[in-house]
């Protein structure tokens, strides 16, 4: 969707708010949001792409006024509501409705493992359509749903830099349409193709783009 989250190239945000050593939780509640999002891993809840799409659907004014972990809390709340795991009334009151039976299958502390990982790569029969070095053009798409092709890189020409096998397609996975594994490439775009003559002729921008968003260039 053409949301405010798709920020690449926007003007008006000012200087980078750089501070040294600020890679930390700044409030205790940010820790709890992180822990909730990590720790609540029961079946049937949102996948990664559904979680991202929930953040993207925040009203733009709210998105811009919230901090990072506050947006996460919004996404958590929205996916819980949409998954019918909680009701709005319960969220507002902070307690379960009368007669609600607690589940007994929530994950235990053993799942807390920063080195646990699951790749988005999948085996597929289809051969990759493009070869490294080939000229390609991105699709001119404006879907109302989730996509990882940013606006600034739509309908733009570049070259295939690398192939990453077939990977889960967020455009499908965010909408309950399954993983739809699709060949994924890194595509290199000349900065001038994206930003015009004001950009350096030496610079390039590299993006990962799924095959369904590419045409022969």
């Amino acid at each position: 969707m053409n949301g405010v989250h798709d920020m690449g190239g926007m003007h008006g945000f000012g200087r980078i708010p750089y501070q040294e050593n600020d890679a930390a939780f700044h409030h205790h509640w940010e820790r709890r949001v992180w822990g909730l999002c990590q720790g609540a891993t029961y079946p049937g809840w949102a996948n990664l792409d559904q979680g991202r799409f929930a953040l993207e659907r925040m009203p733009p004014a709210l998105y811009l006024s919230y901090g990072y972990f506050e947006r996460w809390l919004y996404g958590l709340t929205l996916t819980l509501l949409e998954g019918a795991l909680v009701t709005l009334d319960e969220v507002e009151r902070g307690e379960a409705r009368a007669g609600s039976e607690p589940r007994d299958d929530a994950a235990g502390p053993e799942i807390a493992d920063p080195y646990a990982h699951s790749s988005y790569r999948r085996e597929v029969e289809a051969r990759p359509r493009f070869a490294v070095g080939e000229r390609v053009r991105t699709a001119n798409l404006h879907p109302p749903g989730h996509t990882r092709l940013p606006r600034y890189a739509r309908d733009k020409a570049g070259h295939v830099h690398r192939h990453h096998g077939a990977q889960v397609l967020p455009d499908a996975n965010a909408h309950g349409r399954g993983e739809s594994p699709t060949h994924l490439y890194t595509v290199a775009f000349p900065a001038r193709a994206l930003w015009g003559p004001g950009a350096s002729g030496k610079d390039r921008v590299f993006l990962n783009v799924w095959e369904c968003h590419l045409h022969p260039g």
Partner: protein
Amino acid sequence: MTDREPPGEADRFSELAHLPSDPALRVKAMESLLVEKGLVRPETIDACIEKFEHDIGPHNGARVVARAWVDADFKARLLGDATAVVGEMGLLGEQTAEVVALENGPRVHNVVVCTLCSCYPWALLGLPPSWYKSFAYRARVVREPRAVLRELGVDLAEDVEVRVWDSTAEVRFLVVPERPAGTEELNEAALAALVTRDSMIGVARLAAPPA
């Protein structure tokens, strides 16, 4: 089949707008609700916070960089298939299932961003810094990387090629910064101690250690 607007978007916002404005209160209410419903266990929340806040950090990425500096074969394999190499070191993990390593040098400068959210190689670098997640960084570094880098203290000559990497898939990027001069005598562990988080994102170059 045509895509439809997501259902209930506006309605859902009007519902969520009724919640308390203080995020601390909202989180507290959400936590107690999820615990009461058996959707999360408090000890699991605590364990997740503990592990992610203290076990991972830029020291992980620094180990990879320092080894690349001292071992040419390792570096060649890292630049060819970082996922395999980082996996052998046991350093794949959260948000870091597939990795591409990018070498910075006198002629090429790589810098990493996620314009769409704030994807970051957590297992290699730990919690992302606030500036990396800022709207200004997400908006600007793809369009004017040289201005952003200058603002952050990296002034690049015109003939250096800048490569900006936008993290749009489940592939994370790790910058291997240039080894500073005057470090020939240092061993791998001492070298790792020189490698900063910012240099592995690509917004800093490493200075020679004080003599």
